[in-house]
């Protein structure tokens, strides 16, 4: 891995973020005059003018854009029109909950999905393979809102074993994490299976077997590291989509995460909060991609970054 490659990747990441900021700015302005959206027809023209002057909305669009960029760079994401609190702080207050839920779900998905997929590949055509694939397909075919509701009905309503909503202890996390993680586990299982099968069919696996290496060594030291290369890419997508993916689950379980904040803010037209969240999602995506690039280069010496060419 070399400096020029890293610098180029960082530059590209920064460019992507700038593009996201710009798109958010344009979309929010296209949505209409924020003053009118906020006050509707209830307020006189004079108040609107004063409001626009207060927030700089009477400036030319270019100036508004530059001012917007400047405030973002200074960490100022504006104030929530509902509570008057800083949008940044509102979001950061919720973020730990989303990270907690998403992290646990993802961990669950990785720990279940990848071993299941690898096991299916190693026992291709067997009963294990068929059961794993059936489970995988079913798991990502069931929408989160259905799975969440079913889990609540069975484990919270019927048996009363687990809490159905809100936060508290580790038990509150079980149902939402299962809901969110199941689909991901299914996706990972499928990808892990096909990646592993692809690698197991490669001539170098036959070569490793032919030189008398034990089956364990062939599988874990030769096949798995090569199969991990495509899996890292998929995992990157999942991490990047974590916040957006959690919206439905957070709503079902009344989980006080960023996803629910986003839904509430959209309903209330709390633009500052919405754009803060959208930018945060964009930043997560970009960061996840960067991590994927670095990890892939580390796993795959054929990539240009790894060769240092």
């Amino acid at each position: 891995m070399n400096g020029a490659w890293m610098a180029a990747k960082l530059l590209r990441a920064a460019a992507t973020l700038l593009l996201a900021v710009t798109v958010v700015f344009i979309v929010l302005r296209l949505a209409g005059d924020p003053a009118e959206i906020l006050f509707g027809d209830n307020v006189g023209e004079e108040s609107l003018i004063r409001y626009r002057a207060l927030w700089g909305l009477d400036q030319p669009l270019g100036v508004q854009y530059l001012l917007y960029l400047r405030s973002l760079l200074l960490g100022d994401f504006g104030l929530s029109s509902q509570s008057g609190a800083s949008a940044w702080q509102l979001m950061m207050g919720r973020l730990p909950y989303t990270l907690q839920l998403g992290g646990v779900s993802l961990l669950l998905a990785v720990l279940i999905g990848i071993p299941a997929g690898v096991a299916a590949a190693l026992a291709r055509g067997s009963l294990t393979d068929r059961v794993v694939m059936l489970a995988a397909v079913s798991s990502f075919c069931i929408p989160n809102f259905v799975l969440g509701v079913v889990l609540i009905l069975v484990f919270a309503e019927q048996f009363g074993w687990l809490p159905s909503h809100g936060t508290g202890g580790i038990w509150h996390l079980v149902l939402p994490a299962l809901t969110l993680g199941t689909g991901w586990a299914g996706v990972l299982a499928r990808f892990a299976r096909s990646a592993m099968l692809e690698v197991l069919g490669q001539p170098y696996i036959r070569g490793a077997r032919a030189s008398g290496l034990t089956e364990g060594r062939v599988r874990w030291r030769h096949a798995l590291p090569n199969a991990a290369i495509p899996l890292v890419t998929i995992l990157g997508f999942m991490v990047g989509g974590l916040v957006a993916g959690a919206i439905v689950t957070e709503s079902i379980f009344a989980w006080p995460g960023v996803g629910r904040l986003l839904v509430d803010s959209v309903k209330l037209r709390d633009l500052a909060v919405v754009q803060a969240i959208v930018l945060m999602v964009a930043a997560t995506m970009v960061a996840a991609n960067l991590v994927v690039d670095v990890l892939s280069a580390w796993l795959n010496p054929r990539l240009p970054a790894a060769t240092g060419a």
Partner: protein
Amino acid sequence: MDVALAVPPVTRVDTPPLLALWQITVDFAARGGGMVRVVHGIDLDIRPGETLGLVGESGSGKSVTCLAALRLLPAEAQIGGRIAFDGADIARMGAAQLQSLRGGRIAIVFQDPAAALNPTQTIGWQLRERLVRHQGLRGEALQAAAIAALARVGIADPAQRLEDYPHHLSGGMCQRAMIAMALTGKPSLLIADEPTTALDVTTQAQILALLRDLQRETGMAMVLVSHDLGVIAESCARVAVMYAGRIVEQGPTTEIFATPRHPYTRGLLDSLPRIDHVVARLAAMPGALPQPGRLPPGCSFAPRCDRARPACVANMPRLEMQGARALRCLHPHDGPPAPPGIVQMEPGADQQGVPMVEAQALGLRYAPRRLLGLFARGAAVQAVDGVSFTLHRGETLGLVGESGCGKSTVARMVAGLLTPSNGALRFAPERNAAPGVPAPRFAQLVFQDPLGALDPRQRIAAQIAEPLEIHRIGNAASRRAEVLRLLDAVGLDPALAEAFPHRLSGGQRQRVVLARALALRPPMLIADEPFSALDVSVQAQVIELLAELQAREALTLLFISHDLRVVRRICGRVAVMYAGRIVETAPAERLFGSPQHPYTQALLAAVPSPDLGARPSHQPLRGEPPSPLRPPPGCRFHPRCAMARPLCRVEAPALRELFQGQAVACHVAHGDA
């Protein structure tokens, strides 16, 4: 598995065999249920220290037999018969025993060395892993053994190469590394499964010489699997010829090659174009190898055999022992084959004829890759440098050289697919005659891989008619008639017009590609390795077809190939390329008869010949072609040239004419014919 009645046949040998295969059968699960037998009872003995050649076309079962011997086939495959190695029954070995045998006393190297190495680990990691497995080494002794292992197979700078990943190394280097890994278990038997098929001819000669040296040094036995009779003739004392999962003829190589008795063996030898002479017509066997599971009744070869009689169709002949030889044929040939009808090649169209293509100092430079358009990574690559030639109407020019020499790049520039970065291409006026007449009607390309060149979802007729549709020639009915005419011209059954490509064999597909290329009736064809993907018997058929079409339609042909034997059969004039430059050009008779450039001489000497007595006495060409990133100064061949002088290191030689029509870019060549 029917291993119960295991009484190996009595062999008339003095030494007990090292590996004995007895009645080996292999069945694979067929698509749509059931089993398909691909190997039908193979008996083979390999004695200590001997070299056995296993020859046959792809699909004949030779690789499967070898993999079966080590139980390396996928679990779905069923192996029958008995495999005895040094008295132990491999079929009954437990996993642990089998694993210590594999890579231990029996080692195997495979065809595509770059793919047979793990791409995400260094050469050193993979080599050390095998050393730990088979020699139990650790620490400094391990590292020292790894370095010694690479040095032993002729890899320069071994300590450095240990840190490299497989993709850093050339194919030849990868194969050397594979051989080093195979030797870690000190094998008494090495199975080499097409070890040089993916390599260039000079690299092939190096690897074969290395294998011979190692064998002499260690006394190990070797099974050399190859489809190339030349490779077998040069390396093996004994040979077994396989056809459709059975051995059809077996015996000492000298005897088999001098008096081949099975019509298939004789057909294989006759199908192979020679480097030293040109036959009037390659005696191509008709048809192709039958698919497993669709074998004809009786002798599997009978449908392609000109000696077949009713008895051949009724019964599968047995493999009969006759002294040291074995033969499976009811009506074998007797005595040596008739001498081939050697012809003097006509020098082709007259040199003063109309030029179709004139290339002047053609060059192609690939700019370095850039990151975000800012940082240049690596240097520019000069793939082709100062290439000049003239291709006259009706002439067949062969462009030969090893992979990476720039021959395909030249072909693509002539075809208009790449724009030269230096120099000029001038074409016959008809290319630009009518404004709006595009280049495809002037020259058509034929590529190497016929399956990749055909759309799997379109019927054959539609694909052949497509150029006519694009150029709005004729109507539906006339196009249909034209397709049938073209199918007939390339020797295909018109019934195949409505078939999809997957139903066709490799040879049939290449015929379709030829038919499509001829649809616009171009005066010129550019063929880039058109026969490399084909087996020798099918290759002979398509070579004859192309030669016939070329003569009948007076086509001008630019023929790109690494196979000098094929070039010898097809081309009237030849240009040899090395590292982006033409080093020699001459009429084929002269080039093959008295090559002048040291590289041309080395290239010709490296071509394996099935003719007896042609065993290589010379040292194969050392080293590898230079990286196009860092070509050596002066003559690009000088680092590998035995005759290089100080001048060669500083000044690049220009092409100069030594004889009528024979030009050489060499400071040393004098032209003593």
